[in-house]
């Protein structure tokens, strides 16, 4: 009786406590029914239908926070790693936060600076989730000071309904100082300045019989973010100590990297310049991991994020953590209304240039017979003539009438397939891509948008340009009934493939319905194989043909 009373009181308190606070979350389900399509080499899986499903639930009450994510792969959709299977708890945490401290136990995500030496994040579209499992303490001990300490192991996989974590333990510390909060006069003079330093180390047992491996590998760096009126400059410099791994061929070189961004913007005009130099900066919580698995650091790409079908999917660039020297420039200009080029509504012009090269790795200074496995010397921004990537693109957007606008795009891509290894092409692939887009607003609720895209590869063996799969074209028509219906037809064709049998068409029809925070989309059609990339991180997606249903709901 006494026990029953205690139990009742306990659960009463729990119920009272949890009757406060707020619950939020979201649900996402992606279902695929695939059929065999011998033309594109798509096989129907034995289960015929595939599904990924996620449900996030977060609870907050007076500083207390807790949450879970249920995941189900029954089995996983196409392109996900095969080791993802089963249903279970994929993410859980609890913690407490107030103005001074933010403590999280369990799973969490975090990023230091641009992520060069620490970025734990989820990109579900990529099947990437390197969440931490451990604890995080975020402390704001003093005005303008933020200290963060993360300890844990990263998620590697989700097998039989349970997470599998990295063999290496990751320890991360970051200290950020916002000087504007210390010196208010800076704010008055339109100066913004913050500085920060990070230290990340991993411990993984030496399990290699060939080499004596460093079991504790450290990586550290500093960064600043400076702004004056409409100008900004930020940079991050990092060093990684000895980290022999499968990625770098078990060399004992230190890694280093720098990322610099500078920009200026005012109404109607903006310019952004970026530079990056990376050497031996693959940093994973398993020295034997590959692809997108268990990355502690993240190498941001210096490329424009394209959205048009052909330019985004056929030759996407993936960052090269073993070494690259990259630059990017962006200019945005708006021709004013009433001017010759601006017309009645103004005209937007956007220019973008990005390129990446192999760094020079100087081996002549390494003594013959040296057994240190320090294989070369390098200097940041010392680039070779070996190009990895180049993208020159221009976009002009003009509104002609209140209801009609058009966009013209031109892209010139050079893609080194020997490095990125996306297709069977040898050497470089150069392509010219043109896109014309028009959007017409029929009335207040109805609008129609259309795209016509063409991609032409350059066939020039003298300059080592491989025509690869030849020419492509895509047509897109999208009809929207605001705010809840949309219909799309996408027709992609590899009409210019040098191999006649591979001149394949890829039609897709899409229909979607939105109810506030709920969306249901059905897509049926053929998808060509290729790399799917987000933020310079890519995964291979096999060819498929069938129905894809996606459902999302937030609460």
């Amino acid at each position, binding site marked *: 009786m006494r026990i029953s009373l205690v139990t009742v009181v306990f659960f009463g308190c729990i119920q009272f406590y949890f009757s406060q606070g707020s619950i939020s979350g979201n649900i996402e389900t992606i279902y695929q029914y695939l059929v065999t399509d011998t033309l594109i080499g798509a096989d129907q899986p034995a289960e015929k239908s595939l599904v990924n499903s996620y449900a996030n639930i977060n609870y907050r009450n007076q500083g207390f926070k807790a949450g879970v994510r249920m995941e189900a792969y029954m089995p996983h959709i196409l392109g996900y790693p095969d080791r993802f299977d089963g249903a279970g708890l994929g993410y859980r945490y609890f913690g407490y936060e107030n103005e*001074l401290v933010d403590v999280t136990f369990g799973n969490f995500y975090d990023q230091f600076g641009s992520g060069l030496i620490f970025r734990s994040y989820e990109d579900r579209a990529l099947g990437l989730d390197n969440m931490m499992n451990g604890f995080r303490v975020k*402390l704001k*001990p*003093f005005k303008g*000071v933020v*200290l963060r*300490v993360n300890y844990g192991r990263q998620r590697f996989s989700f097998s039989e309904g349970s997470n599998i974590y990295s063999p290496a333990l990751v*320890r991360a*510390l970051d*200290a950020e100082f916002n000087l504007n909060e210390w010196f208010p006069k800076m704010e008055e003079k339109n100066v913004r300045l913050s500085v920060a330093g990070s*230290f*990340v*180390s991993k411990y993984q047992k030496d*399990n290699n*019989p*060939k*080499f*004596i*491996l*460093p*079991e*504790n*590998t*450290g990586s550290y760096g500093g960064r600043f973010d400076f702004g004056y009126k409409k100008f900004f400059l930020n940079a991050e410099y990092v060093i990684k*100590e*000895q980290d*022999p791994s499968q990625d770098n061929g*078990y060399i*004992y070189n230190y890694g280093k990297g720098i990322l610099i961004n500078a920009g200026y913007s005012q109404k109607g005009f903006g310019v952004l310049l970026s530079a990056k130099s990376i050497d031996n900066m693959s940093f994973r919580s398993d020295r034997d991991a590959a692809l997108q698995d268990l990355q502690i650091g993240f190498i941001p790409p210096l490329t424009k994020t394209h959205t048009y079908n052909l330019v985004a999917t056929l030759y996407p660039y993936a960052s090269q953590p073993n070494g690259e020297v990259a630059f990017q420039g962006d200019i945005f200009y708006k021709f004013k209304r009433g001017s010759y080029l601006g017309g009645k509504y103004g005209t937007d012009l956007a220019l973008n240039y990005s390129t990446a090269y192999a760094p020079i790795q100087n081996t002549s200074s390494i003594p013959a017979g040296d*057994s*240190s*496995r320090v294989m070369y010397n390098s200097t940041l921004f010392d680039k070779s003539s070996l190009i990895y990537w180049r993208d020159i693109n221009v976009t002009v957007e003009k509104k002609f009438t209140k209801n009609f606008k058009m966009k013209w795009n031109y892209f010139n891509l050079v893609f080194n397939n020997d490095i990125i290894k996306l297709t069977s092409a040898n050497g470089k692939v150069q392509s010219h891509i043109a896109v014309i887009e028009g959007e017409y607003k029929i009335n207040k609720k109805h609008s129609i948008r259309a795209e016509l895209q063409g991609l032409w590869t350059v066939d020039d063996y003298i300059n080592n340009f491989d025509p690869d799969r030849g020419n492509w074209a895509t047509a897109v028509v999208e009809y929207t009934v605001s705010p809840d219906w949309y219909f799309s037809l996408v027709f992609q064709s590899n009409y210019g493939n040098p191999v006649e049998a591979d001149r394949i068409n890829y039609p897709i029809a899409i229909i979607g319905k939105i109810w506030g925070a709920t969306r249901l989309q059905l897509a049926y059609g053929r998808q060509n194989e290729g790399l799917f990339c987000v933020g310079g991180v890519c995964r291979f997606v096999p060819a498929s043909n069938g129905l894809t249903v996606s459902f999302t709901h937030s609460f």
Partner: protein
Amino acid sequence: MKATFLVSIVLGFLMLSTFTNCDKVENPYPEQYAIDTTLYPGLWADYLSNEYPVFTQNTNTLRNALIEDYTGHKCNNCPNAAIIAHDIEVANPGRAFVASIHAAPSATGTSSFQSFDPTASSFYTDHTNPEGRQYGIEFQNGFNFFANPQGTVSRKIVDNKMFDLSGTWQSRTATILADTDLKVNLQSEVNFYTSTNGGFLHVEVEKLTADPITMNAVVYVIEKSLIDWQVMPNNSYNEFYEHESRHIGCIDNLAMGRSVFSQASSSGEKVMLDYSYKIPAGYTKEDLHFLIYVYDTETYEVLQVIKQEIQ
């Protein structure tokens, strides 16, 4: 607020001091058990790239037995013990292996049974070796080792006795072979080069138990057969006695072997051991084989043993 700031700074520095203890490896190549890379007739880097073995998952579940027959060429009871050991080995091919160690329980590891005179016309051969003698010294007290011929079967202690007379070796072997609790697995490969008359032994050791056991690995070099003098059971001298499975030492001269697992090692952990070996003068590779075993350093019990031909 000041106290909080101070605490956080101290905390930060403490964390930083932890992090900064990163490892720096000046020479990445294992040195502690240096191997003679000149036995490879080519560039060592090529060996590592092309000839270093990649083992598949070891699926063995059987525990093998090591019979250590401590013997002497002037011991008249030793030939009968050797026959028993040999018969067990023949009856259990690939599962039971014999090492005839010429040593005795004493401060020197030898007794009159192992004595020899290099100038004499008989019994002039020194069958002992430093590692064998070290076993005689190591086990002279507390293991029921009192004379030759005595032996151990996987050094398992039965009735408080590690060493016993040959009459129990058969039953002891049967017990070991029937043991289903295999705690460690072994697989090995030899790359031999005729031009250098030597090569490399690579051994993969896999811990199969979560038990906190510290384990060492040892490699015996065994001479398959040698015709030489022996005192026979009738006290006659046999000039043409066949000494079988004669222990002529350890591959790396380490009687107690190399450490492979600590108590903290978890089940499933693997260690690779690399050895180089040059065939001694007067032998061919066909005359010798290796017995590779892993033992519990606390109890000396041999947990697994395999035989590796030199090929």
